[in-house]
């Protein structure tokens, strides 16, 4: 083995090791402290109308049928647990689902916005995914933008009579990709040191694409398996959850 070959092998090993130990390819939570103060406030304010609408809808639902409070809380815990479990991934790093597509399909976008803010707060405090100051930005991308797109796609597919598996897959995958694009936009608006906003956006999209695109597809497949499983074994439970969706 020549000297040069040895060098190349060492470099490759170092490279592999570095990416091997990168611990957590979580969904696109913006890290604590990564956005400047003004942007944290702006994204938070942007979320407020959606949160108020969600809160009103939940309040109305619960005042009509008090029994739904435990169901609603269980749904929130379900989203948290599903997004904190390691999913089987191709590269061997441990990655997580966002659960937004699944949540939107099962519980409807209005209740997911409120459940989303609670889940994201818990993820920040208990798992250190995301943060307190970036809560507003994360809520906007993961609990509002993603679920609304997922639900819209699912709804349109249902109206036009597309195969159920295909529509669930599309809803979950595209919702996930949309979340990732919104996050890239949020980061680009805040940080563009020597390029334009669009240049910075391109860079963020490119850097996160290798982890996020496969993740979105895997999430789509898993969501299809989960929804199909529920369709075949849990008709009454789905009907119970459907109450959360109807009351809007």
């Amino acid at each position, binding site marked *: 083995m020549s000297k040069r070959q040895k060098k190349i092998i060492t470099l490759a090993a170092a490279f592999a090791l570095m990416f091997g130990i990168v611990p957590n390819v979580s969904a696109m939570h913006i890290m604590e*402290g990564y956005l400047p103060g003004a942007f944290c406030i702006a994204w938070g304010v942007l979320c407020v109308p959606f949160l108020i609408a969600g809160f009103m809808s939940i309040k109305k639902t619960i005042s009509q049928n008090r029994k739904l409070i435990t*169901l609603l809380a269980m749904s929130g815990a379900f989203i948290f647990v599903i997004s904190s479990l390691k999913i089987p991934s191709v590269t061997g790093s441990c990655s997580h689902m966002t659960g937004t597509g699944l949540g939107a399909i099962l519980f409807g976008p209005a209740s997911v916005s409120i459940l989303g803010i609670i889940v994201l707060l818990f993820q920040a405090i208990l798992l250190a995914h995301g943060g307190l100051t970036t809560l507003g930005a994360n809520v906007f991308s993961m609990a509002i933008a993603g679920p609304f797109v997922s639900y819209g796609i699912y709804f349109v597919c249902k109206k036009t009579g597309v195969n159920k598996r295909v529509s669930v897959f599309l809803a979950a995958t595209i919702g996930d990709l949309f979340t990732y694009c919104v996050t890239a936009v949020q980061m680009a608006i805040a940080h563009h040191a020597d390029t334009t906003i669009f240049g910075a956006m391109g860079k963020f999209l490119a850097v996160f694409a290798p982890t996020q695109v496969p993740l979105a597809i895997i999430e789509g497949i898993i969501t299809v398996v989960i929804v199909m499983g529920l369709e075949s074994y849990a008709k009454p439970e789905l009907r119970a959850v459907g109450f959360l969706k109807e009351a809007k």
Partner: protein
Amino acid sequence: MITIDKMCYHSKLRYENAGEKFAFAVITLLICVMSRSAAVAGIVLAVTGVLTVWKGGIPVARYVRFLTVPLAFLILSTAAIMFNIRRTPLDLFALPIGGWYLTASSHSFFYAVSLVLTALAAVSCLYFLSFTTPMPDILQVLRRLHCPKLMIEMMLLIYRFIFILLDTASAISTSQDCRMGNRDYKTSLKSFGMLGSVLMIRAVSRSGKLYDSMEARCYDGTIRVLSENHPPKKKVIAGIVCFELLLFSFAL
């Protein structure tokens, strides 16, 4: 199950007044994020690190390992901020690739360094809160701050259910492992999906049972829990106020 949750119940600062800890963490966090200076970030990182590890009694190795949790995000996005691919080289360095350059300017380099420091300091503030204050205490503080009652109640219930569902999920995944459920990639995807759907079914039936048992114990729309009260100490409050004023004047 959730390491942070387990650790914070063992912290030596657990029985301090929750409002004090919450105020300290949040105000420091705000000053750190608003000022965005490397010096403030360094001070904050040192102070909260020492408080969490030395006063709180969290093992150093654990703490450092937790600081690396957001590392993947930090490395990738800072790389995106620092490096540019363009036709003309910038002032810090430039690596030619074909007709293009992978290049960075010194301005964006310093920007990236202060950003990384600020982010790490902010994470250390968050860790101070989550390594010393159990979730029920944080909820108590939120209740004092007039967060809507329904939200608090939902958070209390969700916090409780998370552990029930995690327990169920880990039992299911153990039994899937025993039965060759993760034999190859395709099976493991299918197993994970099945775990998800069974978990949902269990969750719905659990929630029904829980409501029945709450009803049997005279549930009337509010959940009342007793909370231990640890009165704030004047010395600690004075210390916090002094520290924040100093930090604030330093940030200006």
